[in-house]
C-alpha cells in the first residue's frame, strides 16, 4: 500500500497500510517510543478507500486485513487512527492463538498482576490509566493475554484508549496521541504508557487478583466464586472457544488460583480505594 508502518506491542507485530498518509503518521507518532520492528509481522491491516472516489471526496476508511467483520462500517478519514486501532484489536480478538485473551485491563505491581475485566463502559481503561499514574506498570487496557503454558499474564501495552470525561480526568499526566472528536464512541484520545511499561513489554506477571468493576453504582464489593468467575470469563474471552481444550485448561487454572471479586463504584476515587483494600 502507499503508506505503511509496522509496530510491535508485547508479543504481536502488526503491519498497517493505508491509502492516506495521515493515519500512518498518527500511528508512527503514537508508537514512537516502542522498539522498532523489522521482522515478519503477525498481522496485516489495511485502511483503504471504501469506494475508489472516497480516497479524495469525503474520504472514508474501510477496515481490512487478515481478520475482518463484515458489518464494520467505514469511518471518516479524521478517525483513521481509531480505524487502525480497532483493526489491530480485531486481529488479536479473532486471530491470536498463543494466549487466552480476556477483554480486560491489566496492571502490575511487585511482579503481581491485577486484572480488571468488564464490558465497554465498565471503566477498565480509566481505572488502568489511574492506577498506571500511581506507579503500577501498565500491561494493557484492552486484552489480558494469559499464557496457556504458565498461567502468567503477558503485557500487551497499547496506548490506553480514553473517552470523553476520562480524557479530562487525566489531562495533566503523561504523553497523548491526537484528540479524535465526534467518533461513534465520543471523543477519544490515547494515553501513551510510560517508558518503563514499554521497556518491560515482553516481561510477564503472575495474576494475583481479578476484579469485575461496574461503574455508576454505590460502592460495593463481593467475592466471586470459581464457577461464576469461569462463566463470566468465558463471555469476556474472544478466543476461549477457538482454543478448545487449551482454553478450558487455562481458564480453569486461572479461576482456581486467582481470587476474584465484583466491585461497584460511583467514581474513580472510590474505585481506587476499593482496589487498594482488596489488593492487600
Amino acid at each position, binding site marked *: 500500500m502507499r503508506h505503511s508502518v509496522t509496530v510491535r506491542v508485547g508479543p504481536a507485530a502488526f503491519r498497517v497500510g493505508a491509502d492516506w498518509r495521515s493515519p500512518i503518521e498518527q500511528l508512527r507518532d503514537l508508537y514512537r517510543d516502542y522498539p522498532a520492528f523489522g*521482522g*515478519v509481522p*503477525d498481522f496485516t491491516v*489495511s485502511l483503504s478507500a471504501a469506494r475508489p472516489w472516497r480516497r479524495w471526496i469525503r474520504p472514508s476508511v474501510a477496515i*481490512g*486485513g*487478515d481478520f475482518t467483520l463484515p458489518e464494520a462500517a467505514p469511518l471518516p478519514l479524521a478517525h483513521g487512527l481509531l480505524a487502525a486501532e480497532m483493526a489491530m484489536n480485531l486481529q488479536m480478538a479473532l486471530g491470536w492463538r*498463543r494466549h487466552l485473551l480476556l477483554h480486560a485491563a491489566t496492571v502490575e505491581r511487585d511482579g503481581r498482576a491485577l486484572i480488571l475485566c468488564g464490558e465497554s463502559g465498565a471503566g477498565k481503561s480509566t481505572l488502568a490509566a489511574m492506577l498506571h499514574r500511581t506507579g503500577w506498570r501498565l500491561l494493557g487496557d484492552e486484552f489480558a493475554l494469559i499464557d496457556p503454558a504458565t498461567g502468567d499474564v503477558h503485557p500487551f501495552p497499547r496506548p490506553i484508549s480514553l473517552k470523553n470525561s476520562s480524557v479530562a480526568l487525566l489531562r495533566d499526566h503523561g504523553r497523548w496521541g491526537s484528540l479524535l472528536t465526534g467518533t461513534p464512541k465520543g471523543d477519544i484520545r490515547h494515553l501513551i504508557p510510560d517508558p518503563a511499561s514499554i521497556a518491560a513489554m515482553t516481561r510477564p506477571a503472575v495474576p494475583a487478583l481479578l476484579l469485575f468493576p461496574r461503574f455508576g453504582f454505590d460502592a460495593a464489593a463481593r467475592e466471586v466464586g470459581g464457577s461464576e468467575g469461569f462463566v463470566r470469563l468465558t463471555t469476556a474471552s474472544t478466543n476461549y472457544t477457538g482454543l*478448545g481444550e487449551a482454553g478450558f485448561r487455562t481458564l480453569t487454572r486461572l479461576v482456581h488460583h486467582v481470587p476474584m471479586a465484583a466491585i461497584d463504584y460511583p467514581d474513580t476515587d472510590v474505585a481506587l480505594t476499593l482496589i487498594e483494600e482488596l489488593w492487600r
Partner: protein
Amino acid sequence: MSAAATLVRVLRDPGAAATLDVAGWTGLIACARAEQLLGTLAWRVDGLALPAGVAPILADARDAAEAARRGALWEAEMARRALVPLGVPAILLKGTAFVAAGLAAGQGRAIGDLDLLVPRDAMAAVETALIDAGWEWVKPDPYDDAYYRRWMHELPPMIHRERDRMIDVHHTILPLTARRRPDAGALIAAAQPLGNGLSVLHPADMIVHAAAHLLADGDLAGGLRNLWDIDRLVREWDDPDAAAVLRRHAAAHNLADTVALALRLSHRLYGTPVDPALAGAARPSDGWFVRRLLARDGWGRPTRPATRLAFYVRSHWLRMPPAMLARHLWIKWLRKPPGA
C-alpha cells in the same frame, strides 16, 4: 509476480520458500490467509528452516487447522446422531469429507460450514430432524427462502442455536437453474461408507464436485483453495484406472469439459500430474482463469477488478437463464439497503 503467484509457487515447491526475504514472507502470509490457504502452506513448509517470526505464525495456523478439523468432525457427528434414525444416506462433502476420510486435501484445510448431501426425496424429513436437534433458519426472508427451495440445490442455510455452526443440506451439487445437471442419484449410489452411518463421495465424484464448485457454480472466489483440493485429490487417488474412471464419472454428470478445465488449471498452477487425453490441450481462455485465480496482492487485497467483475457476471450467467437472472437481480436490487 503477484503474491498469489508466489503462494502457488511455494505450495507447488516448498523449497522455493528459501528464497523469500522478510517482505516476501509478509506478502505470502497475508495472501495465503486471504485465500484460506495459510494452514495448508504451514503444512507444506513444515520442517524447513524458517525466518524468526514465521515459525510461530505457521504453528498457529496448523493449530487453527487442527481446531477446525476437530470442530468439523464434531459437527458431522452431531448431524449423524440427528439423521441416523431416518435411515437415509447422508454424505459428507468438501472439507469435512476430506478430514473424515483422512485425505491429504484435508491437511491444514480451513473448514467452515458442514456440507451434507442427502436424497432429494428425504429433504423434508432431514429438515425436520435437524430442526428437532436444534438447528434453525439463518435467512428469515420469504423471497430468499422461496428462492432456495425452488431453485437451489440445497436447503436455506441453517445454524445450530447452541454451537453457532452452519449446516448446508444439498440434494445435488449444482443449482437446479444451472446449465449442467449432475446425476445426484449416481453420486449417492457410488458414495463410500465411513462405517459410522455417514459416507463420502467416490474419489472420482469428489474431483467432479470440486471442479463443478470451482468452475460451474461461482465467481472463482477462494479458487486457489478449491484448485488445491483438486490437486491433492488427483495425486492421492491411487487407482491405475483413475483416468478412465474419472472420465466416465465426469461424462455421467455432464461435466466432462468442466473437469478437463479444472485438470488443466491444476496442472498449470500446481503441476498436478494429469492424463493429457482427459485434460485436453491448453486453450487460450485458460489464461483468463489463471489471471482471475492469481488476482491477489501481498496485502491480501483483491486485484484486477475488471477480471473479477467478468467472472462475477459469468457466475450468474452459468447459474441462471437470462430472464430469470434479470428478475432475480431486479428483486435483489430493489431490496438493497440504501448506501450499500
